[in-house]
């Protein structure tokens, strides 16, 4: 007990003194996960729009496939990415392994089915509400799509936040492709895992507190948004 309290005390002073190592780890975590969500949304959003607005052959297959992909364990994605980008892998020449880009790619792939699944349902709901009203007031096809996106804005953002929370807390896969290299690919979760195993609890506790604060903040924002739209 004594040890834990001492570690907690040191951890808090690390946070308060804005320790450079902690600061850089937190910064990298955020930039990796935010970039992953950003690149995923470039793909997920058009796909969701297509699924929500158009009836085309193969649509229900894509919807089912997306739902199934949500259940794929992160380590499996990590393994596949590792095999692809390792030196001897087909994409090995790019030299991506153990770089932040490897983590971004893996996290983007992990988060894409989640974002598509949430966004397409949101867009489908808003489409049925907005479509006829927009058209009856003279919207062209594109103007209707923009109106739907505007109306669905906060619900879509909620989906992105859920996706962000999923990847920023991810450990195993990020460790496999990122390598947890100090100063290069060490993010909050991988650092916590390593420091705990080393028995060096101060840094682990400090990062754990920050991670907890992040997830509480995310939850708080989500609840505020849902309260605002209902």
């Amino acid at each position: 007990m004594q040890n834990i309290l001492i570690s907690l005390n040191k951890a808090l002073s690390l946070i308060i003194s804005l320790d450079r190592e902690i600061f850089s780890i937190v910064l990298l975590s955020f930039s990796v996960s935010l970039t992953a969500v950003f690149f995923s949304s470039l793909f997920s959003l058009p796909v969701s729009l297509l699924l929500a607005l158009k009836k085309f052959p193969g649509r229900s297959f894509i919807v089912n496939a997306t739902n199934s992909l949500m259940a794929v364990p992160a380590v499996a994605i990590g393994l596949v990415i590792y095999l692809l980008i390792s030196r001897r892998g087909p994409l090995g020449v790019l030299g991506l392994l153990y770089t932040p880009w490897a983590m971004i790619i893996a996290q983007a792939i992990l988060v894409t089915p989640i974002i598509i699944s949430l966004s397409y349902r949101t867009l489908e709901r808003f489409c049925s509400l907005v479509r006829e009203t927009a058209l009856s007031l003279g919207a062209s096809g594109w103007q209707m799509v923009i109106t739907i996106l505007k109306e669905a804005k906060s619900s879509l953002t909620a989906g992105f936040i859920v996706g962000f929370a999923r990847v920023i807390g991810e450990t195993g896969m990020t460790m496999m492709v990122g390598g947890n290299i100090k100063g290069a690919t060490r993010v909050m979760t991988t650092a916590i895992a390593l420091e705990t195993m080393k028995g060096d609890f101060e840094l682990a506790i400090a990062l754990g507190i920050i991670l907890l604060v992040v997830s509480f903040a995310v939850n708080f924002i989500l609840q505020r948004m849902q309260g605002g739209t209902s």
Partner: protein
Amino acid sequence: MNIWGEKICKSFGGKEVLRNINIEIAEGGIGCVIGPNGAGKTTLFKILSFLDRASSGEVYFNGSPSSSLSREERLNLRRRISLVMQNPFMFNTSIWKNVAYGLKLRRGRNVVEKVEEALRIVELSSIKHQSALTLSSGEAQRVALARALVLESEVLFLDEPVANLDPLSTKIIENLIVKMGKEHKRTVVLATHNLLQARRFADRVFVLRKGEIIQRGTAEDVFRHPGSSFSAEFVDVGNLFRGMVIFEQGVQKVDLGKIKIEIVPQSELFSTGISVFATIRPEDILLSREPLHSSARNSFLGRITNMEDRGGIIWVALEPVPELQESKSESVSAPFFAIITKRSKEEMDLEVGMRVYFTFKASCVNVMVAE
């Protein structure tokens, strides 16, 4: 702009919603499509305002077929027509921006002036900066109407514009309909299940039932010669009679031939001999085995000619019979309809052919001049 639908059919997943509809919406004036809920009014409006396509048939505007139009031409045509839905969707922004929406899409001019004017007409200027999501259904309907008004469309379709609204909103909207149709000579087309409303506004009436137009003509025609099962089809007005205003011992009544019903005195009907329509909602009629001593001014003896189960509630058709059994076989007149529950029917042991008293208050009789 003339809109003319020819042989319009529409099915959803094998279910036929509209069947062989021929309809012409002439320029100017107020048209009215009346029919019970589920008759296909909304679907017809969506097709005529180019929001949806017919499964077969053709919609013509000013004589040219619409199916041969390019996407661009169709959009331009659609922008000359507005449709206000029954439960309008409000965009998640202020009332003002909701009203400005259509003008912004068109990059229209004088947006501010037009929006302010429309808001003034629907009497919502004082709350224009409020969020549109906080409105009552009556206010939302007025915003929806203002959204369409600013566009100055040539044709305005209104789907059940005042169904279930508060009296103030109803009044504002009804005044607006009359103003648009009669003063500004815009083409206004209403869908309603309310006969009284149709009677008040419409120049031309189309009666839609189960996806087919069963009657059409001027409002006068349709109301003078209602089709066989016409009046009973409408839940709102199960009882529609034509009669004449009379005075009996200083009491204003409507003579329906067989019986005379007492009404709430109305100044514009003072003169005797004026021809009127009288309507009574079936749920306002009370049945009893014995004569009732109550404040209700109208109580008559009737014979049950028919009972029909319509999903838990029973529609009872009654033929008035004179209390003194003088003339047993009189000419058959339109029956009165009353609605009762299954339990009431069982407890009162009602059967076809039985004699019961039917009672209703004078204030439940809605009277309008038939001219």
